[in-house]
């Protein structure tokens, strides 16, 4: 069966290649720092399960040290110029989209086939990770097709991958680090403290304020944690279950579903949700690290208010 481990080996091999190519890049001002950074991530993917918790902790400290003290930077691997790209784009035409579409189409059709046809009975993929595994297969096939079609230098996919990876830089690790911070918050009982505080500010017998604190608390705590999943159990325990469901007899499905979506409004407004808000800013080479968040606030705030009202009117 193809499992997540296979994907980790693929990812590990890719990051190992980035490390080696960085080390070999004499034009790269921070080549050793980058080599160490991508090398440690490769180690994490390839051998993370054998390092032990403390070993992984040390690995995290090394990565943070490299990034935090400015030892990771952007390389400039050899590639085509804008002029050449315009000429290539004109020559190759819309066929250029075909390899790019291999990834989503593989993920799309593969997931559908795996869930709704006898193919799913084959047990070829770990059912928990079907789409992600198909994403990996799609990426590999797309590289293969492009190599066969356009015959770029053999190292081109890895060099181009390194170019993009360098433009994301240390921000690539932020989502994983924030998930780890969430785990430490949970260990330290931060959620219970916040939940207790939120529960304490609600005057007795005021249903609207209870709903408001629940919805705004979901959004606010999600902004702190960067993740609505971390906020939901806390707000459910503090307000959702004891007040809204048990005391005021609200509809649990509405309170659960729309409460979670109120949390998603918080996700749109926080740098802590790095994979949605900070990494894209790096990927798109925005000058303003918070540019994506700024574009989202105008949607998130009115939608949060809508969610608050939806809970108030639909649940009771």
């Amino acid at each position, binding site marked *: 069966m193809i499992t997540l481990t296979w994907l*980790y080996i*693929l*990812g590990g091999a*890719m990051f190992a290649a980035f490390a080696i190519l960085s080390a070999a890049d004499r034009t790269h001002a921070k080549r050793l720092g980058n080599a160490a950074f991508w090398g440690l*991530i490769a180690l994490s993917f390839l051998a993370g399960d054998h390092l032990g918790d*403390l070993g992984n*902790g040390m*690995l*995290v400290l090394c990565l*943070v040290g490299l990034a935090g003290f400015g030892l990771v930077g952007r390389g400039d691997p050899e590639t085509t110029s804008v002029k*050449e*790209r*315009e000429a290539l*784009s004109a020559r190759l*035409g*819309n*066929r250029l989209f075909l390899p*790019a579409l291999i990834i*989503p189409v593989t993920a799309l059709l593969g997931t559908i086939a795996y869930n709704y046809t006898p193919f799913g009975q084959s047990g070829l993929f770990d059912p928990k990770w079907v*789409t*992600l595994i198909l994403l990996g297969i799609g990426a590999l096939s797309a590289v293969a097709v*492009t190599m066969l079609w356009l015959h770029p230098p053999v190292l*081109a996919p890895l060099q*181009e*991958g390194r170019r*993009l990876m360098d433009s994301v830089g*240390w921000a690539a690790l*932020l989502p994983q*680090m924030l*998930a*780890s*911070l969430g*785990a*430490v*918050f949970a*260990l*330290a009982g931060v959620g219970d403290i916040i939940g207790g505080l939120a529960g304490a500010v609600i005057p007795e017998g005021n249903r609207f304020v209870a709903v408001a604190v629940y919805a705004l608390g979901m959004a606010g705590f999600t902004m*702190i944690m960067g993740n*609505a*999943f971390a906020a*939901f159990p806390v707000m*459910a325990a503090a307000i959702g279950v004891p007040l809204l469901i048990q005391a005021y007899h609200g509809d649990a499905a509405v309170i659960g579903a*729309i*409460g979670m979506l109120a949390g998603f409004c918080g*996700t*749109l407004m926080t740098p*802590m949700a790095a994979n*949605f808000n*900070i990494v*894209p800013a790096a*990927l*798109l080479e*925005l000058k*303003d690290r918070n*540019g*994506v968040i700024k574009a989202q606030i*105008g*949607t998130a705030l*009115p*939608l949060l208010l809508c969610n608050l009202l939806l809970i108030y009117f639909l649940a009771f």
Partner: protein
Amino acid sequence: MSAYLPLLGIAIVVIGFLLKFNPLLVVTVAAFVTGIAAGFDPLAVLAALGKSFNDNRFVTIVYIVLPVIGLLERFGLQQRARALIAGFKGATAGRLLLAYLLMRQAMSALGLTSVAGHAQTVRPLVAPMGEAAAETQLGGLDEDTRETVKSYAAATDNVGLFFGEDIFIAIGSILLIKGTFETYGIEIAPLHLSLWAIPTAVLAFLIHGARLLLLDRRLAHSSPRHPRESGDPASSYGSVMKKRDSRVRGNDEGGGS
């Protein structure tokens, strides 16, 4: 008072982000302060960090698409995406992103969340297409407007994902809600949860969609049509690409079947 000490970590995160220290450093310091304030041994905090880091590697695996995206960019994928959009007469940045929003939301509602994304679709296709549409609208783009359009492209992907995925019954958040309520003896069918995600999904589409159309109006007002008609590299680039595009598409139609 000491019961509230673990909240120090949150304060560190907020201040650290505001002062623009390296976020990885801020997060690590916050983790140690929080853990130690709650009475844990620093080594125990380090182990908790390490374990969770290892468990969450799947978050970072999405970068395996970068080699092929970079490879196609080498052959002009972004330029092609621009040319394609510049060939459509009525294309505007707002309408284009609106169509993407609808597609992203619909796919997510079917559980196909990883099909699109910032690395897979926004950087190689959606952002350059948005830029090209805005370029045709304005006859040229200044840096700030380009930033705005790119930011909206990423924002649209997020909104479509977040407010589509909960309509799918087997998504993580639905299962989390069900699991959390079960610990209190409250039983809910996942289908009920996903049905109640629909009103918010519709409102998200309306609100963000309206903002996208407002973006078009803002673009129209931000600069006169066709500023710096001659000599502006962006506008001449746009018109050159348009000509090329019709020629290339003609070729494709001729030899396609």
